[in-house]
């Protein structure tokens, strides 16, 4: 796999769209391939196509020559990896992927979270996510109070429902297995889940409301 060390900036022209296939980190505009993010340009050569099978009685048109794929890697350091050892595959949250996130802020209509783990992979950087008040529970959506479901600092298991806009993924905890998996009490102690809506501080005995995920 050929590796190029040149860095592309967002909006940089990479070539015409009929010469290469667009990979992650690129987009097509007006039949041209442009870079979408800052990163090193990598060109992956496609596998060599087999020639048409030998037959003496039929002429089969040759398959179109496959194009190489141009992509931009997210991690600039990945472009400097030694030959043969490609940096670990970049995992992005996709729709329906389960993520672990930490609640950063609560507001009356939504909770802002920082996505830390996608599937089984711990991310290098944090992606911002939003859990809207109508996506907290599956039932009685209009009676949900964010203050009784999440608090800043909680670790939450959620599922991505939309790639969202420029700043946020949209997540949902509307399932029994989704919700808060780790919480700290107001007094600062780690709490144990008691029911689907309550955590208990073992030291002070105080209970706090959360949308609790079913432990398994």
């Amino acid at each position, binding site marked *: 796999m050929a590796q190029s060390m040149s860095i592309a900036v967002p909006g940089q022209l990479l070539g015409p769209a009929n010469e290469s296939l667009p990979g992650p980190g690129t987009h097509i505009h007006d039949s041209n391939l442009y870079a979408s993010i800052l990163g090193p340009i990598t060109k992956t050569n496609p596998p060599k196509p087999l020639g048409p099978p030998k037959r003496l009685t039929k002429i089969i048109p040759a398959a179109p020559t496959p194009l190489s794929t141009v992509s931009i890697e997210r991690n600039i350091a990945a472009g400097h990896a030694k030959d043969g050892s490609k940096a670990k595959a970049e995992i992005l949250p996709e729709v329906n992927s389960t993520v672990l996130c930490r609640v950063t*802020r*609560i*507001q*009356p209509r939504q909770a802002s979270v920082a996505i830390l783990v996608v599937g089984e992979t711990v991310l290098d950087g944090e992606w911002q996510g939003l859990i809207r008040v109508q996506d907290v529970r599956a039932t009685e959506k209009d009676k949900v109070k*964010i*203050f009784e479901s999440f*608090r*800043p600092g909680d670790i939450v298991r959620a599922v991505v429902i939309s790639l969202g806009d420029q700043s946020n993924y949209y997540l949902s905890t509307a399932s029994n297995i989704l919700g808060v998996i780790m919480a700290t009490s107001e007094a600062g102690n780690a709490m144990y889940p008691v029911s689907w809506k309550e955590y208990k501080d073992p*030291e*002070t*005995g105080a209970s706090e409301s959360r949308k609790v995920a079913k432990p398994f």
Partner: protein
Amino acid sequence: MAVSMERFVLPGESLDAEYLPSHPTLPLKLGPGLRHIPPNTITPTVAGQLCSDKRKNAVWVEFNGGRYIPTVGDLVIATINRPSPEFYYASLSDYAPQATLPNLSFEGASRKTRPQLQPGALVYARVSLANKHMDPELECVSSSTGKSDGLGPLNGGMLFTISLGMARRLMLPRPAEQGRVVVLDEFGAAGVSFEIAVGRNGKLWVDSTSLKTTLAIGKAIQETDLKGLNPEEQKKLARKSMKDF
């Protein structure tokens, strides 16, 4: 209410059990200014006077802080800052996050008939949500009964700023004997008709027949607050201001 004032406390002091009230059946209720550290430490978190109520088995610290911290259930006077499609944004105190007041949280309000409040308007509201993670929320109607109980817009009149301690004294069940505020009784006895509303966020609203009386009453309370006048001095002050009208 058998309130007794024991002594001055400083933050972090250890309190002996003799300063805390005891009751055969009721559990001890901790009010503002005290914190319970399990298993059996109770420490003050502010400097002030330790007060206790034997009848309710409650203990708290009476301190005159400058900053109003919203607490659920408090009655406050909020100033409307700006409207938005679903809420009014109102200010409880300067340099603090704004509180939200839902458009429909008024008595008898529906989408068609709801009060149109202008920026600068005053409302008497109750704090419905207050915690350290979110901006406070207000309501002008009791969520259980749907009645306003005296909450809602305050029309006319004038707003005065008083200290939080003075606001608490005015909001006692019997301000004259418990809070030692007699200046209002003096004005009333002299035949001045007026209406006041007190917010725990340190705001006083006065409405009266004439501007002169409104100003006189508001200034009298502010002076009582600022100079710490005792009942005798308050009576003198009331008589002096009533000489004008």
